[in-house]
């Protein structure tokens, strides 16, 4: 019996191959995304482990960091010796765009037992030179090998806009394999050299501590500078990693969507194989095969397809994951923090999950056809028509169940908080609407049949009837296509809306004609600021200072603005009375917070926010919540006046220069360059350029979304191809009769393509409402909950037309091969096969 089933599968190689491909693609996307996510997580953990080492606590300061004198006092006056100072920065490899190194400045003699990973150092030159010379660094052995360098060689790095020729003093050869991976793309320097190269003389980014008892923790807490925090190292790492969680969850959800489309495919294949073999199954029942055995047979076939497809999918997933890994890494670097993901984390769990999901989905998808197969009465030679009638009778129930699922989904989305329920709701919506598709298609076809008859005569009517007659096939194809197209519409509309919102926000926010900053977000020299604002043609100027500020156990992004009154409308208020807010912002202890910040911290206008300042923790009133799309983490905004009252920190990170109306930004840049000369390497960006670059980063961030969208589409095309081809092949005899009656090959082709176009068109049509609902769910619920952003829903006709065209094209493409094949096959042969 099993042999019979294997033979059946092998006799329909196209069908088998397509369903395998469908499962494989679905599983591949899931596995690839999961691997990419796992790899990102592992890279983070490894680097955190290697770089945190045995650190139990970290002291982090205000926007400037921690004065180094505090650290010296800690050791010399308070005898705290398990303390290590750290300066962190980013260096770019000159001549290798896109490759960055994480720069870590430490005091070798204070490191002691902190970081095991730094052991096993090897170099030709005495390592004292790290401390005594300003240009020495140590790199991981493997990184050196990759760069073709050895200790003693020179390496060109770009730091804060300036290129430096540095000397590789040593290779890091960690004893533990773990560290060899955790230290990828990390350059270790002496803290002195790091301070000099990053322009941080006098300051530390943090102090790592090994505290063993609560008493020590308390002692340290008592010694902290007023605006500093003592945080547990593990909690801080966890908080960092938490930032990427929403992003990664989103990816996973998209990958599951692809698998879901793949599951439709399996359902289709299995149903088809059962239907096609009704007679055989009836015969088997007649010779004494039990229902259970029939059920087992179908499940066995599904298992076989699922297993083979899943295995292929895992292999394919491994291949795709390299691409995804790159994209995931880039997004994390763009949006969150610097992370070098140089390798794939081949976690067996990821693969097992893929296997389980792939095979499990296949089995679930095969359940219904298997049950249907057991229902075959012995010796029944039920005609297709009777079967289809049975299917049609079930449609209302199916649609009813679908509508219930849709409402459940909507309910979940609207009423239950959290991201996971939101995604569950999204999936229920998709599944439910997919169940409605057969009935909707039935109605639509009946509605369209007369119209098509009038347009294309009998063949038109035949196409419409053909779709209806093969509803058990066509509706699955349409549902798979509909799901994929709706994902394209939903995600497309979401990205469009986001982009439009972002772009409008940029227009409103970028008010200065020219923005000047130091590459790498360093500090502008006071004389450079002076020169800039005194340049001819500068009417007003604004400054910005970026940093972090402590608040309880958290660390918030802080943005300090000095703004001319004319630039005030750069801020759009989500809530808060502008007039009162601005005066509180300038004069009092009030701050603005960005929308995501308000969301994450659950703050409203009028609430107070405690921030650690040099005068201790102080309450700040939230005067306004402003729209901001630059960071999903959110930020606190403070006026320079307020900041200067509290912090002794003259640093400015960026200057905005406003000319009189009609200023030629390029000419202004020319003058600014001349005025500042070679004081400092500065980056000049005109309003337009900054806008363009921002959108570029935006688009890059969404590349991965687009890629996943396309993969889901690919799975759908394969599904449609498989479903419609199966249908066409099944009808071979019918087409042969038509040929005998006098249909030309061209007419048969037209009929098949027309039928498919109809299926595609209907799928596209039905995809629109779901797509729009998905985009609404993504924009209003999921993005809001993931990132805290409000976006305006922007439905572009282009996306809708594109989706419709895509559906049509996919279906028509899927019809081409069967059409070609049908017209090529001699009808005599088809009839002969039929007689056999």
């Amino acid at each position, binding site marked *: 019996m099993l042999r019979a089933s294997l033979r059946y599968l092998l006799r329909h190689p196209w069908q088998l191959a397509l369903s395998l491909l469908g499962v494989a693609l679905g599983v591949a996307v899931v596995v690839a995304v999961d691997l990419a996510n796992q790899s990102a997580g592992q890279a983070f953990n490894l680097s955190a482990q290697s770089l945190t080492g045995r650190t139990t606590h970290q002291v982090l300061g205000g926007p400037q960091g921690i004065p180094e004198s505090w650290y010296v006092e800690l050791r*010399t006056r308070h005898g705290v010796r398990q303390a290590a100072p750290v300066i962190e920065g980013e260096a770019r490899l000159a001549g290798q765009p896109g490759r960055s190194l994480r720069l870590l400045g430490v005091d070798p003699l204070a490191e002691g*037992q902190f970081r095991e990973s730094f*052991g096993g150092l090897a170099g030709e030159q005495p390592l004292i030179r790290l401390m*005594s010379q300003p240009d020495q660094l140590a790199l991981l052995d493997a990184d050196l090998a990759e760069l073709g360098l050895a200790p003693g060689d020179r390496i060109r790095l770009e730091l804060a806009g300036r290129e430096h020729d540095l000397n590789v003093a040593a290779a890091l050869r960690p*004893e533990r394999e773990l560290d060899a991976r955790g230290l990828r793309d990390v350059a270790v320097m002496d803290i002195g050299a790091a301070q000099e190269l990053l322009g941080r003389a006098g300051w530390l980014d943090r102090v790592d501590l090994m505290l063993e008892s609560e008493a020590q923790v308390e002692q340290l807490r008592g010694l902290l500078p007023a605006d500093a925090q003592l945080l547990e190292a593990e909690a801080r790492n966890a908080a960092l990693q938490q930032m990427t969680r929403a992003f990664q969850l989103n990816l996973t959800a998209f990958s599951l969507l692809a698998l879901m489309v793949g599951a439709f495919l399996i359902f289709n294949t299995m149903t088809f194989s059962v239907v096609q073999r009704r007679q055989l199954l009836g015969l088997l029942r007649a010779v004494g095969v039990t229902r259970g055995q029939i059920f087992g047979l179908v499940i066995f076939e599904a298992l076989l397809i699922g297993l083979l497809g899943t295995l292929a999918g895992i292999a394919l997933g491994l291949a795709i994951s390299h691409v995804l890994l790159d994209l995931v890494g880039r997004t994390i670097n763009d949006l969150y923090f610097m992370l070098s993901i140089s390798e794939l984390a081949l976690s067996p769990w990821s693969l097992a999950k893929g296997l389980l999901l792939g095979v499990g989905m296949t089995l679930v998808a095969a359940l219904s056809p298997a049950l249907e197969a057991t229902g075959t009465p012995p010796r029944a030679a039920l005609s297709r028509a009777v079967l289809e009638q049975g299917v049609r009778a079930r449609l209302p129930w199916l649609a009813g169940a679908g509508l219930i699922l849709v409402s459940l989904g909507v309910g979940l989305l609207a009423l239950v908080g959290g991201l996971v329920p939101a995604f569950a709701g999204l999936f229920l919506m998709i599944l439910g609407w997919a169940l409605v598709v057969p009935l909707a298609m039935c109605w639509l076809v009946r509605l369209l049949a007369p119209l098509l008859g009038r347009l294309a005569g009998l063949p038109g009517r035949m196409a419409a009837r053909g779709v209806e007659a093969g509803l058990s096939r066509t509706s699955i194809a349409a549902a798979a296509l509909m799901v994929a197209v709706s994902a394209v519409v939903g995600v497309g509309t979401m990205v469009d809306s986001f982009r439009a919102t972002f772009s409008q926000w940029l227009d409103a926010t970028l008010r200065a004609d020219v923005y000047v900053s130091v590459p790498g977000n360093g500090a502008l020299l006071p004389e450079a600021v002076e020169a800039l604002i005194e340049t001819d043609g500068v009417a007003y100027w604004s400054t910005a200072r970026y940093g972090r500020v402590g608040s309880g156990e958290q660390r918030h992004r802080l943005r300090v603005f000095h703004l001319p009154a004319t630039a005030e409308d750069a801020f759009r208020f989500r809530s808060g009375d502008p007039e009162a807010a601005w005066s509180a912002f300038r004069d009092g202890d009030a701050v603005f917070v960005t929308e995501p910040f308000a969301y994450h911290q659950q703050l409203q206008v009028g609430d107070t926010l405690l921030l650690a300042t040099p005068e201790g923790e102080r309450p700040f009133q939230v005067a306004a919540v402003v729209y901001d799309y630059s960071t999903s983490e959110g930020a606190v905004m403070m006026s320079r006046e307020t900041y200067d009252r509290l912090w002794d920190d003259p640093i400015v990170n960026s200057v905005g220069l406003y000319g009189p109306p009609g200023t030629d930004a390029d000419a202004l840049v020319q003058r600014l360059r001349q005025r500042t000369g070679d004081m400092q390497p500065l980056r000049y960006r005109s309003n337009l350029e900054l806008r363009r670059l921002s959108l570029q980063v935006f688009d890059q961030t969404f590349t991965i979304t687009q890629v996943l969208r396309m993969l889901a589409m690919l799975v759908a095309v394969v599904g449609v191809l498989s479903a419609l081809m199966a249908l066409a092949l099944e009808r071979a005899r019918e087409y042969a009769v038509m040929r005998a009656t006098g249909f030309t090959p061209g007419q048969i082709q037209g009929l098949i393509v027309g039928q498919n176009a109809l299926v595609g068109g209907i799928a596209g049509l039905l995809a629109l409402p779901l797509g729009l609902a998905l985009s609404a769910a993504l924009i209003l619920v999921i993005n809001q909950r993931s990132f805290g952003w409000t976006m305006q829903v922007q439905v572009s006709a282009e996306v809708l037309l594109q989706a419709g065209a895509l559906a049509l094209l996919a279906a028509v493409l899927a019809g081409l091969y069967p059409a070609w094949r049908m017209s090529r096959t001699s009808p005599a042969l088809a009839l002969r096969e039929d007689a056999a």
Partner: protein
Amino acid sequence: MKRWVALPLVMLVLVAGWWLWPSPPGSPDASGQTQSVTRFLSGEEAAEGYARITGPEALEFPRDHGAHPGYRHEWWYITGQLETAQGRHFGYQITFFRFNLDPDAPERTSDWGTNQVWMAHLGLTDTDGGRFHHRERFSRGGDIGLAGAAVDPFRVWLDDWRLDGAAGPDIMPLRLQAADDGLALDLHLDALKPLVLQGEAGYSQKGPDPGNASRYFSYTRLATDGELILDGERFRVSGLSWMDREWGSSVLSEGQTGWNWFSLQLDDQTEIMYYILRLDDGAIAPRSKGLFVAADGSSQVLQTQDVELEETRHWDSPLGDARYPVAWRLRIPSRDLQLEIEAVLDDQELRTGFRYWEGAVRIRGARDGEPVAGGGYAELTGYAE
């Protein structure tokens, strides 16, 4: 002279196991580094770029109590004998070492950038408890202020181990504070005799080449009292201490394997410093020297031929590969002096990266037929390989 032991130690720590973390044993890099250390130590070229001591020069105080960063090495070294009112005896040693490890280092903007590395050793011999405790610390020097030496007022420190003195040319009295993990010293020291210049007015020549020398002076008798904590137990103690100051850039001569060095304080108010440089063949190098300080503070150089030193008992390190002398008979016939010197505790070996023996000794003997007694310190290097 004796503290040269520290130089290879620092190099070893800094170079072979940079972050005080062991390199894989037997790795070619580790041995390669060790070789370069040897080269660094033995070659004349290696001292290039450092300031050199080429002859007697007038010392200037308080300036010369402070650091001399241009020279390769320098130390502030204090040893002493302490007793509680009940007569419980302790020996202690604290040394602040300064090294310049890169004479060509450029000026730096960052206060952290420096060629100065500091090391400090703290040793405590619990004679009655029969135990020897020692601790070691490293830090960078430079403007950052984690370790250093300064005058007006005088101070030397590494982290929270510190030696503070007065402003002005006379830095006395001193206060020494050093605590680390169950061990703490808080002592006041005051000079009972003025400082004495070693060698030729402070010019202490070590080898035949000019510049192969150090600047060397000592306080040989410092009244000491204060507090000592050991394993949480607090002791009120008093006694006598000795302080050495030495700096230079010279290196060991070829063929020298190690040295034995003694600082002896006798109850007739005299002190003796004496060291021998041991050669490969077991002979004693001709530049070995000493100093005799009379009760009135006047001093005379002791030459090798003036002193007879005989080892009378030995002790084997528990590691099994070193055999140290722990008792000696020292005779200075010209002064009719004969002393029996014996370690208060046999095991006063510092078993760190670089092994040596540095410990308290007690002295019995006779001068001009009258009995004398006292205490002191001995340093023995080059016994373990």
